């Protein structure tokens, strides 16, 4: 999966969970403050990302995801780790 696709997939997940339009979900938007991502939604997004990309997100990484950009970086890193281990 290419980086662009990863971003599109994550935007679609965030849009589904938050109800905001995909076009409003910009790379540096603050998920908690601007898209009303509370603790339940943060977990819903994490679970959906794990399911979609077949990866495991560690608990300590969850607080690092405050923007879309960070989420994409984390998922890309986890995908390459997974590929390296495969």
């Amino acid at each position: 999966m290419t980086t662009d696709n990863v971003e599109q997939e994550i935007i679609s997940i965030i849009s589904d969970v938050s109800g905001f339009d995909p076009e409003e979900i910009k790379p540096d938007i603050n998920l908690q403050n601007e898209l009303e991502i509370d603790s339940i939604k943060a977990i819903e997004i994490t679970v959906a990302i794990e399911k979609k990309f077949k990866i495991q997100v560690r608990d300590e990484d969850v607080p690092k995801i405050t923007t879309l950009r960070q989420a994409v970086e984390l998922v890309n890193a986890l995908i390459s780790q997974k590929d390296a281990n495969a």
Partner: protein
Amino acid sequence: MPKEDKEMYDAIIIGAGMSGLVCGCYLAKAGMKVLIAEQHYKPGGYCSSFKRQGFTFDAAAHSFGSYRNGGNLNTVFKELDLDKRIPIKRYDPTDIVITPDYKIAFWIDHNKTIQELQKAFPNETKIRDFITFMANPKPVDIAAMRKKTFRDLLTQYFTNDELIAILSFPLFGNGGLPPSLMSAFTGSKIFTEFVLDGGYYPEGGMQALPDVLAKRFVELGGTLLLSSTVRKIKVRDNKISGVLFGKDNFVQSRYVISNCDARRTFFKLLGRKIISEELLDKLNNMTPTLSMFIIYIGIDKYFNALPNPCSTVWFLPRYDIEEMYLDAKSKNKTDLTKYLLRVSPDGKAILAMSNTSFKNKQYWNANKYNLLDTFIKLIEQSTIPNLSEHIVYREAATPYTLFRYTLNYMGASYGWESTTEQFADPDLRKPSFISNLYLTGHWTTYVQGIAGVVYLGYDTAKLIIRKEQKEKP
């Protein structure tokens, strides 16, 4: 009948539980044409009350939390203009945990609670840190505990197993799991919303909450149908088309929101053919929470041995909640030695309950009244001496009763178990394979109690309203 003459709705909500009612109010307020269909003859689900021989009993839910300024329930009631319509009181202390060695009260003033805990456990140095963290947790800190158990969280602060049990027991009652199995996420939510911000109660009994929401829903233009069972959710080209009442009464709707049992929604209302193998497997392997054996006692007068009205009393006979949980899961016995108990505001009605498994109808028919007597004796021995001398009315509800009134699978108290293993699947809230279908209530994700399901009703409505705005030409 020509198609145009048939009723058509923007949204049909199945179930008038607290979550369905809140969702309905918000959708109706946004201008949508909404129908709520409830199979029972009154709204509320587990949040309801009934009258017998002049006594008013809450059926199951008996107080609520999250009503502080900014709390989810408070926000919803204010936004729906209900906060001034319904007098809500907070009782102090909200909870009291009694064990053979301790009596710890949880006060509205957290400092008082901290002092009480420090006095009882002088060697524990992080009591204040823990209560402070729980009183105002940051969303990310809570989200980051997804794979931890509540016991993992408690052992970061404490070493004394008796203290750990005392802090966990209200969560066993309010969430049906021992600390070593309950996810830290759910555990912290319950602790923050039910224990530290708990103890609220509406004038007239818990039924006042669904009643005022139902009234508001109708004022906002919604249609509430009681004693109306939805038989099928109809889907055309992977999109919601409406619901079926009875055999062939089809009512068209653009959205369906199911506030009823998850297995019922997927297996009965949608049908096994529509859902994926993967979800089918998942649902078949998921564990529901324990049910409850509940007793309702009417007494002749308030007497000295009774605890404060409206403080929830938790009686913990020993400190191994893990073992209590395994006992409660047993299919052939009912351990009532651990329980919660609450006296009504007028001091006349007592509600007591204990976690237990569903078993079957025959078991409860054979044992219900023996267990009712056993339960009263246990309460006399452990918390209220001479209780039986004052009893003028007694009745019990078994897990089968809970199932019969609410259709919750196996009479489950809180939907699926909030273990770290069966964490929320997005398909349980908003199935990806059918558009315009949503589920709300305690079977959909990791929230619990009235505060949790109210949040979900509000959130589900918000998702639908945003979707509508996007799709408007």
